[in-house]
């Protein structure tokens, strides 16, 4: 603390060298919470300093650097270089599992494409929320297909190339049928509570294969 005071007194008689004045400008602008005017700079710097001239040098010094000297009104401040603004964001990527509703909707579209919203709702047995479809559209896992030639000409949904890429499929037809699902034990994993699987399942399989092949013909 004593040294700087000495400097201050010295400077009453002789202005600090320009290099020193630049250092002072740097320090004041760095530590100040607000932009600082030339007048204030000079009031804070030792007597005889030329803040305006030192500012020109400092500005040059910081040209092209990560922080620049910026003039705001008649005051000066140090600012992050505009092209580095992205560093002021901390991006956290959170991976979440797709909701059950979204997975089911997606599965129905994949197995039954092209399929209308009404058909999806019929298969799921519940209405499909707008948000769910929007989410899948946004993820670019589904897109709109051709309109159905039925009354009202409803839009249909089909899966996208992105979808196939994500799930490692060459074709939506590669999706395993119910019979295959059962043979891998996937179906038995999730029997509705209290129910016992019986011989009735086989029919179901035939029906869905037939349905699917029809759907994928085009």
């Amino acid at each position: 603390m004593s040294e700087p005071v000495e400097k201050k007194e010295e400077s009453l008689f002789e202005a600090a060298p320009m290099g020193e004045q630049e250092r002072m400008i740097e320090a004041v602008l760095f530590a100040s919470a607000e932009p600082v005017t030339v007048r204030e700079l000079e009031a804070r710097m030792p007597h005889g300093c030329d803040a305006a001239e030192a500012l020109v040098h400092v500005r040059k010094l910081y040209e092209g650097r990560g922080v620049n000297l910026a003039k705001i009104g008649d005051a000066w401040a140090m600012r992050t270089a505009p092209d580095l603004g992205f560093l002021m964001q901390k991006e956290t990527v959170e991976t979440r599992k797709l909701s059950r509703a979204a997975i089911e909707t997606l599965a129905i579209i994949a197995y039954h494409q092209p399929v209308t919203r009404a058909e999806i709702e019929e298969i799921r047995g519940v209405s499909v929320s707008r948000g769910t479809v929007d989410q899948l559209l946004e993820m670019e896992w589904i897109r709109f297909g051709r309109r159905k030639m039925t009354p009202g000409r409803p839009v249909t949904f089909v899966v996208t190339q992105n979808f196939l890429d994500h799930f490692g499929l060459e074709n939506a037809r590669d999706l395993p049928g119910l019979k295959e699902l059962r043979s891998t034990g996937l179906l038995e994993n999730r029997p509705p509570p209290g129910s016992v699987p019986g011989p009735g399942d086989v029919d179901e399989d035939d029906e869905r294969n037939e349905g699917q092949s029809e759907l994928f013909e085009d």
Partner: protein
Amino acid sequence: MSEDLFEEDRISVAERVAAEALIIDVDGFEGPLDVLLTLSRTQKVDLRQISILELAHQYLAFVEKVKVLRLELAADYLVMAAWLAFLKSRLLLPPDPTEEGPSGAELAAHLAFQLERLQAMRDCAARLMGRDQLGRDFFARGQIEVVERVKKVTYTASLLDLMQGYARIRTRDDFRPFILDRESVFTMEQALERMRGLIGYAGDWTDIVSYLPEGWENDPVKRRSATAATFAASLELVKEGHLEIRQTESFAPIQLRKRT
């Protein structure tokens, strides 16, 4: 008393003045060690060469003074006085080889160490506080920029999720008829409830068949379900420690009895 007077004479005027100043200041001290350290300065020597005997004298004189002035001294000051009196006697008397414990010299050396260490820590504290300090001599950035936290959520699903999801929907339909068929299903819960009511009487080995619910024996579907449930329930009760179960050989009757 005469010894006290004798000692008083040995203390110089300057020391007496110093001791009085100490007394006035007694509340300002941070304990006996602090007093000792302050007293030690009157010896005007390096702490390493300090005479602990002399210091003990000084401290005891200080405590006497306080007593004369009828000031209250905290207990730890008096404990220190007693200890220093003990140390003094140890230092003055020739060492008694039969006596156990550390010698006077060892005790004195440790006290000297403590004083030196306390002084060293005080010096360190002063040097630390004398350093350039943040917010006083050097400064942090005044105009900080808030780092905006951008949370990006990505959703994933595996092929397994997809297939299970589809299977879930499709099997909902499949199993609908079987839910209606609960009539011929005897659940383990039902069996457990039934067994709990019966095991109280099962003193001897009894065939498990006799525990089947009434009316379930004839229809094969019903019997199968009831047998399975009753067997599962028995195992559960064995696990709980209520029942013992045995089967003498393969396909022999399974027998149960209450665990005693």
